[in-house]
């Protein structure tokens, strides 16, 4: 399968932050959710993927182009919108659409009109009068109507009201009906990621914590509640991310769940009472706190 992008051994250093040893790949036609707290390195990663930043080490390939050297060719097929990106306040959305249309020959006017209606945007309105949600939707319209092969979105749903958030997520879902198009979007919101992504990647302190397809991610992690007292060395088991004593109960979060785990815990005198699936948010927080690096 062709890769929409691949990063191998990437490092990027800034005075107070460093992205280290990132190797990551997104197969074409898939949607990847990039989850991390503020300052985790999500924006830096997206900048590397658009050729805006050059890595200090490693190699970036996007849609078959080596970046940043071939960024012009790559950006012809990339739609990139970031949370801190703004349009020209004094100009209308139509002015922006005309500008982008002149640059991208694949601009789909019919789809742009459909998105205008769907997002309830007025093309003749100056962008300065747009709300935050309208601004995000306008940026998304400008990205989607050019029919990019790879869509890179930095925090697309941050600060949106629930209605706007759903509209944006639905529009992204539609993009994926075309199996040749790929999406990478970063978010704090694990619910959005869980809803939309095929693959999930956790980033923390500039390092890759974990990356896997959504189903195996959710399958691998379990919360196990036991009665008894956890031995001191239990925390050292590699398949466990956290062990917490609470009175006579022990809460264990397993990053590599397997059917033998309850028996092994029982052999230590722990009585397994419940085994639950974990929500992505819980998995993310546990993974980050445990400091695991992929």
């Amino acid at each position, binding site marked *: 399968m062709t890769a929409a992008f691949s990063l191998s051994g990437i490092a990027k250093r800034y005075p107070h932050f460093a992205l280290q040893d990132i190797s990551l790949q997104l197969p074409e036609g898939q949607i990847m959710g990039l989850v991390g707290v503020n300052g985790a390195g999500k924006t830096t990663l997206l*900048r590397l993927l*658009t*050729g*805006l*930043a*050059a890595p200090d080490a490693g190699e970036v390939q996007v849609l078959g182009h080596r970046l*940043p*050297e071939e*960024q*012009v*060719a790559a*950006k*012809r097929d*990339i739609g*990139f*919108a*970031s949370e*801190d*990106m*703004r*349009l*020209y*306040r*004094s*100009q209308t959305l139509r*002015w922006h659409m005309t*500008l*982008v249309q*002149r*640059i991208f020959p694949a601009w789909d006017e019919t789809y742009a009109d459909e998105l205008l209606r769907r997002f309830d945007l007025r093309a003749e309105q100056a962008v300065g009068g747009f709300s935050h949600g309208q601004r995000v939707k306008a*940026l998304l319209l400008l990205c989607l109507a050019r029919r990019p092969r790879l869509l890179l979105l930095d925090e697309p749903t941050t600060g949106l009201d629930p209605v706007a958030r759903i509209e944006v997520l639905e529009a992204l879902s539609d993009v994926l009906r075309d199996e040749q198009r790929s999406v990478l979007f970063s978010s704090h919101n694990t619910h959005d990621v869980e809803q939309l992504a095929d693959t999930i990647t956790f980033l923390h302190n500039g390092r890759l914590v974990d990356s896997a397809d959504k189903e195996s991610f959710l399958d691998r992690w379990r919360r196990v509640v036991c009665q008894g007292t956890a031995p001191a060395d239990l925390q050292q088991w590699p398949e466990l991310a956290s062990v917490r004593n609470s009175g006579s109960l022990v809460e264990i979060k397993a990053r590599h769940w397997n059917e033998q785990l309850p028996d092994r815990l029982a052999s230590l005198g722990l009585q397994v009472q419940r085994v639950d699936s974990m929500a992505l948010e819980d998995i993310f927080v546990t993974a980050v706190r445990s400091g695991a690096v992929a």
Partner: protein
Amino acid sequence: MTNNASIIRLLVAKDWQLFQKQLALYVLAGIVALCLLALAKPWAFYLGSLMLIVVVVAAACFSISASLMVERKEHTLAFVMSLPVSPWDFTIAKLLGNLVTFGVPFLVLCLGTLGTVLFTPLPDGLFVYALLIFGYVLFAYSVALSIAMTVESEGWNTFAMIGSMVLINPFIMGLAQIDAISSQIEQDAIVWSTPAVAILLTQVILSVAVLGFTVWHHARKPAFY
């Protein structure tokens, strides 16, 4: 180094579209100043020349701050950089965009001033003096533009822009101290003295060198960040 000519053209046109109304106002104010100069009366000359200098300096500052500093501050640069442009394309587009947005009002007002000197009762000796003052503005503009393109700090940009433009005052006073130039101002003939030619050439060469260095510096950057 290959150019993305069609997109560079679009980005230059974009800057022109964004700022043309404000620049037209500067030209209009400059024409009012020229009308005052054309009256050839001492009070009108003083008021007109002061207004003209203020307008040209303000147009230069507006061009730089609107196309670089404000775009950076309001994050519209991020939108431009997301388009299929390389740092080299972006540098050339910004340089040309600025030279167009400032160059058009600058040339209109410079030629208008020289025309006013030649075709009104004002002494023709002012021709060289006025040209040297415009030459200084061009040099100060080149320095401020170069710094704005190279340094992201708003504070340094503002300092460079205001600092270089404010120095026009000592420059004018300095010209008045050069006898070969000041003695010709009230003559009714254009006299190209050696110091005047040397200063004008220095201004043009330094302006081109500063902008050339900026382009060279940016051409070596593989990425924006």
